């Protein structure tokens, strides 16, 4: 970092913004280091607010992992809230990293996490506020290296033109490899960024988008993805996983914010992956295979994290916590902690089919919160199509048991617009919800708690890359609205509360989820028109997006509402995530004939991950 760059002064702004504690950067367990010349300065950027970013586990892991290295200093950046952004822009002060208030342009790396397609404009905004050229091609030698990773990097094409490097897969090991390589190469005389990018592309899991070019057919479909003269080979295009989670890095402390954030508590990641194989679920495919942490490891982690943060609550994180093989033992342990040290325990993402009454009762001893169930579809036929192995009886029994135990607050999640969905399936949602309601009313009054509240939420199905539904179309905006209004009109009982997501955001999300490289221009245009915080209902402006697509001669229909054929080259086909395309096709075919696939523990369906990505081979 050059000496001329001074820290950004914000003291005079803090009293003028809401929640100034967002910008202090001195939270418990935050890293503060003596800066020296040889240090690699890394800014971990989260393209959303402080409150959301601080709740992100991946950020917490990488932050502490990097800061445990002596010669790396990792700081944090979040999207400033509008009040702070306006002040900074008015005063012409650049965006800075929280810990030292160093302007972003002085960093060696800025790493963005791609959590959600609708946060992409915030990435551009952060770069812009940091006075860093947005497009990779416009950046100079002294500009930071922009590195992207996270779940959306499995199809990073729509944002590829802004990135120097994209990380495919889990970051704990690869991030250190990248930085160590940078340190080595940077020392060489006549160092140039291109040398580093070339060398980095040799690392497995690293994708350098500028080393590739895409050709298109006249009808807009991809003709070929080819490596350019800059390319050094293609070894990178395979996702990285950590094989043994017990040996993987996990911080024994995490940052404790001063203000309330979305998950203001200790989070224990109990396993990665999912045994279930729901056909719409991207996480279920990209995070394969299932890797569990041992009970002993989790107990130590829980103890250390509580000790080092002082948190009053602990929660479990995974895609489906009750699938953890030792879930009962783990919960008993947490309950012990609760009784001894008064620590609250929360257990999100329990599935209802293997949901035991005893388990609920144990949890209830700790804290009686609402229960959440996600049947996803209203009819058994459609649940078979999406491979959600939940039967109506399971839901109704669980609901009844819950009501008997005194729960009066139940949330039910569904999706609309799933492939093959008919009005009958939509009405099936209504019927199912009323059956749950009847379970409550069938109990004698003295056996149930008063004030029943059933919250029904529907989101719109968005086909995602690397899922069996990646070829499917998304229903039109009119159709989304029509199906939502069927439910609006039929879920009118006073105990039922119906929530639905704005269909317009789903359409834009859908375009970017399966978009190709040409969307970078649309993204830039939308940003120029003023789009940011698109994931927030009050900021999202659909008309601006429509305009951006129009002006760039692009089409939402083409990306969101078009069915792809099996032989089309998809924008993410050049990445290897371990799950074979043939398996995805097979699952798609089975969906069409409403045939279910058992979960991985009952029967391996040979998705392919175990051959290429684990040393175990065979069945996971």
């Amino acid at each position: 970092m050059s000496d001329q760059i001074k820290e950004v002064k914000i003291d005079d702004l803090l009293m003028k913004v809401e929640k100034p504690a967002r910008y202090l950067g001195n939270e418990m367990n935050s890293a503060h280091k003596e800066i020296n010349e040889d240090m690699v300065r890394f800014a971990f950027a989260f393209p959303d607010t402080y409150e959301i970013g601080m709740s992100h586990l991946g950020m917490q892991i990488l932050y502490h992992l990097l800061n445990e290295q002596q010669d790396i200093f990792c700081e944090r950046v979040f999207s400033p809230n509008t009040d702070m952004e306006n002040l900074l822009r008015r005063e012409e002060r650049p965006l800075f990293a929280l810990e030292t208030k160093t302007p972003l342009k002085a960093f060696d790396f800025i790493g963005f996490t791609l959590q959600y397609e609708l946060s992409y404009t915030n990435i551009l905004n952060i770069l812009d506020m940091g006075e860093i050229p947005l497009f990779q091609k416009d950046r100079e030698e002294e500009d930071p290296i922009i590195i992207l990773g996270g779940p959306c990097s499995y199809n990073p094409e729509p944002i590829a033109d802004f990135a120097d490097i994209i990380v495919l897969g889990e970051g704990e090991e690869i991030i250190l490899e990248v930085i160590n390589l940078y340190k080595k190469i940077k020392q060489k005389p006549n160092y140039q960024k291109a040398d580093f990018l070339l060398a980095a592309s040799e690392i497995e899991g690293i994708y350098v988008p500028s080393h590739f070019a895409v050709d298109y057919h006249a009808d807009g479909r991809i003709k070929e993805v080819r490596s350019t003269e800059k390319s050094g080979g293609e070894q990178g295009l395979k996702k990285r996983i950590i094989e043994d989670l017990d040996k993987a890095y996990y911080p024994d402390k995490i940052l404790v914010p001063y203000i309330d954030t979305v998950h203001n508590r200790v989070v224990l990641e109990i396993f990665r992956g999912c045994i279930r194989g729901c056909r719409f679920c991207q996480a279920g495919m990209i995070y394969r295979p299932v890797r569990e942490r041992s009970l002993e490891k989790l107990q130590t982690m829980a103890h250390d994290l509580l000790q080092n943060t002082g948190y009053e609550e602990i929660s479990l994180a995974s895609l489906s916590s009750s699938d953890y093989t030792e879930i009962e033992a783990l919960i008993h342990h947490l309950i012990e902690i609760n009784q001894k040290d008064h620590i609250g325990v929360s257990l999100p993402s329990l599935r209802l089919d293997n949901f035991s009454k005893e388990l609920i009762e144990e949890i209830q001893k700790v804290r009686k919160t609402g229960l959440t169930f996600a049947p996803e579809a209203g009819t058994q036929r459609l649940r078979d199509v999406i491979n959600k192995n939940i039967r109506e009886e399971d839901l109704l029994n669980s609901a009844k048991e819950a009501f008997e135990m005194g729960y009066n607050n139940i949330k039910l999640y569904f999706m609309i617009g799933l492939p093959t969905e008919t009005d009958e399936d939509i009405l099936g949602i209504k019927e199912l919800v009323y059956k749950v309601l009847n379970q409550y009313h069938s109990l004698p009054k003295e056996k149930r708690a008063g004030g029943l509240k059933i919250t029904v939420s529907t989101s719109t199905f968005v086909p995602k890359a690397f899922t069996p539904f990646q070829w499917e179309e998304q229903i039109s905006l009119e159709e989304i609205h029509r199906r939502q209004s069927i439910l609006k009109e039929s879920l009118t009982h006073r105990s039922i509360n119906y929530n639905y997501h704005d269909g317009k955001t789903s359409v834009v999300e859908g375009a970017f989820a399966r978009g190709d490289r040409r969307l970078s221009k649309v993204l830039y245009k939308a940003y120029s028109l003023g789009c940011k915080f698109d994931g927030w209902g009050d900021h999202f402006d659909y008309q601006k997006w429509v305009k951006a697509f129009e002006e760039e001669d692009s089409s939402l229909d083409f990306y969101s509402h078009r069915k792809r054929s099996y032989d089309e080259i998809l924008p993410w086909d050049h990445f290897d995530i371990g799950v074979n395309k043939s398996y995805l096709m097979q699952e798609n075919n089975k969906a069409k004939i409403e045939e279910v696939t058992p979960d991985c523990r009952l029967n391996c369906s040979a998705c392919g991950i175990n051959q290429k990505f684990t040393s175990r081979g065979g069945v996971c």
Partner: protein
Amino acid sequence: MAMLRGKFSKTGDMKYISHLDLVRLFHRVLRRAGINIAYTQGFNPHPIISFATALSLGVESYGEYFDLKLNEEMSFTEFQQSVNQHMPRGIKILDGKYIDSKEDSLMSMVEYSDYLIAVEFIDENWDRELFEQWVAGFLEEERIMITRKKKKKRRQRHQEYKEVDVRPLIKELTLESVRGEKWSLYTLLTTGSKGNLKPEDLIKLFEKYLKNQEQNREKENPIEITSVEITRKDLYQEVNGAMKNLIDAV
């Protein structure tokens, strides 16, 4: 069981932490420091700790107080050391002692608080004498009225306001020092259930008064305060006519 009363400072960046967040910060720091705190009974047990009076965001303080119930008495010095070790910079336990748990709550004890208020003006070219005259003049006002929100009654839809005379709540106001462009005022204000005036409000009232004076002077630049820095010095109870801070008062 033992009740510990502690005094602490809240300065620097920590002035941006709201009262609610401060309470939670204490809970977490006490846990980290391994203090054997007593918990409330019931469904969501929480530490038994209470604070004197909330400090506004942006105000620094050298006189904040808490009462904390411990399951077991430990030496205050040991308590102080281990807690300070885990506190973020800006919060520091300064003093403390064990008190009888039958003592009045901090909240009901507070009667006064004093502050240093450093202000900067756009037009700072006045002499000290004139400024002191204004301070005196301000205090000579018979009534100093402020508009306050009335407590909303149940089901009442619109907010109602009332005018309150706060002159009796200002016990002292003097010019403490002038350093460069910073004019520092010292003030002692009634605080708590028997009447309450916040220093932020006092300075606004004073500014209003200055503007009125200014009109009489017929100067071009209107008076405008450009920055205010407030520091609370301490909280007091009046015991037999003497101001005692909340530790000395028990």
